[in-house]
């Protein structure tokens, strides 16, 4: 009994039978989805934004505001982390039963660190875009120079050959 390994492709291909003769006889592709959509039983959203820490129920340790000084905050969070690790070591020696609070503090610092790093990604994306645009402008200018040079050379060769033909 022959069974196929994979399910057959969706049957839409039959609608495009006469596409070569008449491009309008077949349906247009579906428009892009906006908002939320369901895929294999899961809900996804098209609006990709980083949820703020409060939405995840995590306390934010670095100051809020429009422009956060990332380097300073990252460095101070690093110092706090080291201090908390030292405190944990201390607590384990003196009062071992009170480790839970310290461990919670350390994980809070890690969550803040990762959230700060994730919020740097849009900045990185814009910087990459700027870099790509600069490269493209440079290569286009180079191409313009090349074409100008070749045209000049072609004109020169034509003039020369006209000269030699007239001299004949």
């Amino acid at each position, binding site marked *: 009994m022959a069974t196929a390994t994979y399910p057959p492709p969706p049957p839409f291909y039959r609608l495009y039978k006469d596409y070569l003769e008449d491009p309008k006889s077949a349906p247009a592709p579906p428009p892009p989805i906006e908002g939320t959509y369901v895929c294999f039983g899961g809900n996804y959203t098209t609006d990709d934004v980083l949820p703020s820490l409060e939405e995840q129920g995590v306390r934010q340790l670095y100051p809020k505001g429009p422009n956060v000084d990332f380097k300073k905050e990252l*460095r101070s969070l690093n110092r706090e982390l080291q201090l908390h690790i030292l405190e944990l070591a201390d607590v384990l020696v003196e009062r071992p039963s009170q480790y839970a609070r310290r461990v919670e503090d350390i994980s809070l610092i890690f969550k803040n660190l990762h959230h700060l790093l994730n919020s*740097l990604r849009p900045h990185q994306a814009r910087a990459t875009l700027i870099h790509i645009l600069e490269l493209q402008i440079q290569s*286009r200018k180079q191409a313009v120079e090349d074409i*100008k040079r070749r045209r000049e050379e072609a004109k020169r060769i034509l003039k020369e050959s006209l000269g030699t033909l007239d001299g004949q």
Partner: protein
Amino acid sequence: MDIISQLQEQTNTIAALAFNTFGTLQRDAPPVRLSPNYPEPPAVPTDDATKFSEQPKLLSASLVKAAKQFDALVAALPLSDGGEEAQLKRIAELQAENDAVGQELQRQLEAAENELKQVQELFSQAADNCVNLKKPD
């Protein structure tokens, strides 16, 4: 790997070092006498004891080294203090310049193609004349 991914890897490394430190020390620590009521704990062989007493130094040294590396990576962040608006403004400027240069390129390309067509036309005429003027042997 880009700098932000390196920073993320470094935070995860620091976390791994921290719990390895505490786990190793807790697992391998020799027994300690808590009160005079309890008997002396059995002595541990001396080279194990020396190996164990070096552990806190080595583990904490690697933890501090990882933290210093994190600081070095933070210092290497190419963060221009322009903020979002400055970046968006620069993107708009670059797009306008890109469009202008693109149009210039298009003009040059069209002019070059026209010249090429003219030269090809003239060349084919000249070749035809040559063929017509050549006396058959």
